[in-house]
């Protein structure tokens, strides 16, 4: 019996060993649960959806990292002053080569190129899904590719505004090869972007998933808040042209927008602070900056609290809010009282004004005007729009452009082209909405129209990342500010290129102004 047992145990042991060796190679397959490898990707409609969303998400990340959108567009030479932060003062004063981490990070374009690479990968690989998944239609693919092209063109346009010449890379190089490419003349970059956009706007719809159809399982009320549509495409085209001074093109593109914006459910924000979702408005918890806004957006990046994307960083509120909204004594940046009183002269201005009867202020854009440091309160979406600022994460949208902005851009173009009457009409659309007195044709002699249009932009678009670019455009039209004109002449409007970028690619040359 012992012998028997002995034999049996040996047998069992041998069986165990052989079993193990059989299964060993299979057991060594323990793929990562965190990532999706190339082999299994681009197989189904969910892959294209995720990749499409990924491009928008990366673009949002590029725009909000270190509050880049506002650093580039709003702070530099803008109306805001830094309360104590020296790095922000450096941005305001265009001392962009100082030894601050923030400046170093802001001069690195990697995140923008991540968007461009993701778009190129998408354009190259999404067609594969057509073969694998019958739920993915040609129309769907066309929409997706058009968006990818629009995103890539937008990103190039955005980068050219910051750095001037940037390397133009139009394919993904998705093979582990990373050639060193030199900077391309910004005109060629913009020409490429324009071409791509012209192709894209042909395809891009006004609305995605209009019932009974759906787009990736959702209808237009969902997608109108975030996706690039036909109007978005034309808006980018208009700005691209405006940046190059091609105002004829601007007029043409904005003409299309003015004729067709209703198709994308885009409306004017007549109400300064709506009390519900029924009316379109600018500020407050139902305005264009919140996820509660129920109308179409033109170019908008969402950070909805309800989806867990509200964060403490990456929103202008991080810099501008203080007591009484959040638990902070002083904001990082503020608009000084002198600037406010200089800008908002009309006492009826719904954005900010002094009510002469009661002596009170209309504090829509600025709160605590009686204090030394007023708080910029135009955009203040705490969480999903609550009044309790204890837990200060912000759910505000990054609104790149809206109809009022494009209206003023059109007015600018028409004014440059000499069509003053039509320009004034458009300008007065905005003035009317904000209850300020209209610009009269008779004012042309005393108040130059172009100045007035830019002044209106300054008042209307404060905190939305336009001021610096507006200054550049204005001074290109006519030299108003010698400092900006000097920067334009010396190519100082461009940011320095990060030392890390230069180190990793020897072909890149620093912007001459910062040498």
């Amino acid at each position, binding site marked *: 019996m012992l012998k028997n047992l002995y034999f049996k145990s040996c047998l069992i042991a041998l069986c165990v060993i052989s079993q193990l060796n059989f299964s060993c190679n299979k057991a060594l397959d323990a793929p990562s649960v965190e990532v999706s490898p190339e082999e299994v990707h681009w197989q189904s409609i969910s892959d294209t959806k*995720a990749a499409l969303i990924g491009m928008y998400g990366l673009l949002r*990340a590029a725009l909000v990292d270190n509050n880049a959108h506002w650093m580039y567009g709003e702070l530099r030479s803008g109306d805001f002053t830094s309360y104590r932060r020296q790095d922000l003062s450096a941005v305001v004063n265009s001392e962009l080569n100082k030894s601050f981490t923030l400046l170093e990070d802001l001069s690195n374009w990697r995140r923008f190129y991540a968007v461009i690479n993701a778009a190129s990968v998408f354009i190259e690989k999404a067609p594969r899904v057509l073969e694998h998944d019958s739920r993915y239609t040609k129309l769907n693919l066309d929409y997706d590719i058009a968006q990818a092209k629009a995103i890539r063109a937008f990103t190039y346009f955005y980068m050219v505004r910051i750095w001037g010449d940037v390397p133009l890379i139009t394919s993904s190089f998705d093979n582990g090869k990373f050639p060193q490419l030199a900077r391309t003349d910004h005109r060629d970059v913009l020409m490429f972007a324009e071409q791509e956009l012209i192709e894209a706007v042909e395809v891009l719809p006004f609305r995605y998933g209009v019932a009974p159809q759906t787009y990736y399982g959702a209808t237009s009320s969902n997608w109108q808040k975030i996706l690039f549509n036909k109007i978005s495409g034309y808006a980018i085209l208009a700005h691209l042209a405006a940046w190059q001074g091609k105002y004829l093109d601007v007029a043409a593109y904005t003409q299309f927008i003015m004729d067709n914006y209703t198709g994308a459910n885009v409306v004017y924000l007549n109400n300064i602070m709506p009390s519900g979702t029924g009316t379109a408005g600018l500020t407050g918890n139902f305005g264009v900056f919140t996820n509660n806004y129920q109308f179409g957006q033109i170019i908008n990046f969402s950070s909805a609290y309800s989806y867990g994307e509200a964060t403490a960083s990456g929103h202008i509120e991080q810099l501008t809010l203080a007591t009484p909204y959040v638990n902070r004594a002083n904001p990082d940046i503020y608009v000084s009282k002198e600037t406010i009183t200089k800008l908002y002269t009309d006492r009826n201005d719904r954005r900010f004004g002094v009510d002469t009867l009661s002596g009170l202020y209309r504090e829509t854009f600025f709160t605590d005007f009686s204090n030394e440091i007023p708080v910029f309160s135009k955009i203040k979406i705490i969480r999903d729009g609550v009044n309790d600022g204890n837990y200060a994460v912000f759910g505000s949208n990054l609104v790149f452009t809206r109809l009022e902005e494009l209206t003023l851009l059109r007015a600018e173009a028409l004014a440059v082209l000499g069509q003053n009457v039509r320009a004034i009409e458009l300008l007065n659309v905005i003035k009317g909405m904000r209850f300020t007195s209209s610009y009269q044709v008779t004012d042309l002699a005393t108040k130059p129209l172009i100045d007035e249009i830019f002044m209106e932009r300054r008042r209307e678009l404060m905190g939305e990342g336009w001021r610096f670019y507006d200054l550049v455009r204005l001074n290109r039209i006519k030299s108003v500010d010698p400092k900006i004109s000097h920067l334009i002449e010396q190519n100082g409007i461009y940011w320095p290129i990060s030392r890390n970028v230069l180190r990793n690619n020897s072909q890149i040359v620093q912007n001459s102004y910062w040498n």
Partner: protein
Amino acid sequence: MVVKLSRGRFLHKIDHYLAPKRYKILALCMAVVSFVHYGYAASSVIVKENNINKPYFSNKEMTRIVGELSPVGLVLQDTIEEEEFDEETRAKINTLNTRKLTMDSLDIVPIKNNPYLAVGDYLKGQAAGVYVQSPSAEPGTYQNVLVRGLSALQLNNRDINNNQAALYVNGVPMGIENNFAYDIQRYDYNRIGPATDYWASIDLSSIKSIEIIKDPTRLAELGPLAANGAIWITTFGGKTGEREISVNTYYGFNTKPAVTPFNAAYEDLFRQNFYKRYGTEDDRLKYPGYLSDSTNLNYYGPSNWQDLYHSTASLYSMDFSLAGGSDRANFGVFLGHTKNAVSSDETNLKRYNILFNVNMLPFEWFAVSTYVNARRMERDRNRNVRDRYAEMSYLPDLSTPLAPNKNIYSQYIGRYKNEVVDDNVTNHVNGNIRLALDIFSNLQFATNFALDYNEGVRDLFYPGTLMETINYMSTYYGYTQRFVFSNKLAYNYQVNRSNFAVSVGSDYSEDLFRYNFARAYDGPNDYIKLNVVNGNSNDGDYLDPRGGLRVLRYNNKERFHLHSIYGKLGYTYDDLLELTSVLRWDGSSTVQRDSRWLFTPSASVKWNVDKQFDLRNMFNVKLAYARLGKPTYTSRYAAGPQYAANLGWSQDPNVSSYFGYAGLSRDYSFGWTGYNLTWAYSDNLELTLNNAFFNDRLSTSLSLYQRDDKDQIALMPVPFEFGYVGEYKNGLNVRNQGIEAVINGIILPADEEKVGWTTSLNVNFNRNELTALPGGATELQEGNRLLRVGEAIDRFWLFQNTGEYRSVSDVPVDGSGRPLNNNGVPFEVGDARWVDQNGDYIINDDDRMLQGRFTPKFFGGFNNTLSYRGVDVNLAFTYALGMNALNQRASSRYDFASNEDNNAIGAIREIFHWQQDIDIEKYPIYNVWSGTNPYRVDQDLFLENASYLKLRSVSVGYDLGRLNYVKNTLKTTRRAYVYLTANNVFTITKFTGNDPELVNFNGMYDGYGLPLTKTFTLGLKLDL
């Protein structure tokens, strides 16, 4: 329906649904194996009972069974015919403690007189070639045990996994804590979860022996898990013979450190230096509120916070062990409880330990043994504000610090004690079951199943009163699970004077790492400390939190499977010559499929010179070479080109969705992972000379080693125009060279009437060098560090500071009249004077120099034991020389202006920052508002010599068992040893910070390490 679950359990429950399968299989395996064996034992009992037809147990026997501990062992004893075993057979049963100890074994007896908690503590200065980094004295915090230097980059906390040695407890390799949890953290201060070092769970009292395995061929036998060296711990276990009982206990206290506290008046004086010289009107207007009002007694009153922050802490330990058994079966049981504490911030750790070992020899040719060790640790952690905000990843307004006044601080502490929940628990189980068969007398088969499981649970709640009105809760549940299944067939063949030993074997191990983490902000009030969710799985809002909580959930899972097949050939010629060779094939799940298997050879030759020439003293020479694969604990390299949900940005790295939809893209902020990533490996070469002199009264061991860790994966820069932060590539090679010398001497032999003195000195020299970078690159910039081929990998990259610009004329001007500038910002009066190394009148990265090292060039220990008439005195010194640290604490103290203005996490002022903890004399007064950042940490102004010599431990003991009184009252007493120990007696160092040991793993001294203060303990070891 709403169910309330305790938060830890809630995650537990989720996990229960997600990953129970593996457990079931494991449990089943264990059950089957034990069933087979215990079933066999039971059946043999029944057979016997039937044969002789009498009741199996008499009442008397039953009483005896209750008296003894192992019923299984007893059954076998009583039922199988007792036959005397010979010595050789008897040896088979003792599977633990049979290891032959080598020169690399520690002298464990004197170490046991110390209240040490973690493995790193025992090893400091005790073992040649081992250097231990311990950034804080706080019990249970992470330590890093380096064997023969740094073999991989170590720039942040997560990197220690690449360098730390492996820990084997009774042959079971302890799992590591995967560093993937750092991925969701913005700050690198603490790991989420309990962050308790697994290595603190082993009870020193349960340890029988510790050996450092460095010998290449022995490491080769252990395989890739041991690529960074191995610490081999054998615990107390079953023992054949008389029943033995031991009781050990100690009680001690940790004393308060000496601090020099200050209040706001001092801080104000400090700052006035800067405001007077460089401050503008505007700067003065924005002077911090708490400093500007000198009538505010909270800040300007007495600074006596230290009375509450530091208080003498008591520590204790007690354990009980029992062992006994027959030739056929024996057992050992160990029970222990320890509390360790330090005097700062009421931090402490409680540990419970139970260990059980049974060995059986049912037949001469068949041995079974099993061992299980379960531990639990509960930790009270520090109350650092920084760590709290880092955990929350939410920074409120930091402009007003905690007041240095005791009364104010006591309110704060009171809230902490009453309202905060901070439960940190880790549970550990490891064990094995081993079957050994002698198929023939010279052919043996052994199979071993080992399990190691470590889990951590943390429940956290911070009330709104502490967090400026918002409260915060988080729960963490994570574990590391490893099982190893090994089989080995060994054959032995003797011809004349030659002996051949051949063995083949296979090891298969699976590691599973997992965590579930949820955090929520701003709950309804401070009384609800629970995450209340909807528990009905049919509802749409299943598991949604109630009460307006915003819950963010994170979880991740990682696996590492390793399969190894190896063969070992051994040849011995008559005790003169030993030749060994190990050949291995290792397959890893974390390496890409086409290069998954790695073949590694190794060989060694040992020549016993003493035997050859018939010398009286020991003398042998050994030369060994081994190649070992280095494991990778992330499966991402194996995936090749990949897509991930990573849509975050630098301040919020966790965002993975856009508008609620998961977005996938190439993982640009992780880096490009190509198709050609392969194994990294380590080439070890060692020459050892063991010598003895004067009739073995003096023995020396000298080892020369060279270790090349090759083909390691590094993130290499690529042009940023493709969006990637870099590209992962093989090819980083690090070479460690060193000499280890151990001298053990019996200066005065122990004798009853004379003083005995034994001494042991170990001297280690280590240097490392980066020998290659991927793709032939010569330099790689990693954050604030630079790696240059030909230089050590642990150097700092610093500007050379030569003082201060006192006048405009001091600033050098280039040919065209442009002053020296820092990336375009000209230097002005009050700026730091940095050497323009390349003479281009621009101070930038090109002017930074590699300086210093953060691991020591020379280190070791010096241990002495003196004895006289049953009294013994032990002295343990430890030293490290040729090591530097960068004083980040001083840098951030001086850089107050930009820290505070930016509301950065560096601006946080802890309560213990109200003390003089830096050398004020050392630093010039620069313009803190300058755009050149004069107090930047990366300059040699903050580089310090962190060499030290410490008397770590002094203990005096006496064996009361020698006294007749004790002998007579407790007849079975084998030993009754009482001892008194003092730890951290003194330190000799030039370092200006608190302690040169309390430096982070990357050489940064941030002043956050809790101080190592004197500890006194009184203990008793009773063996019956």
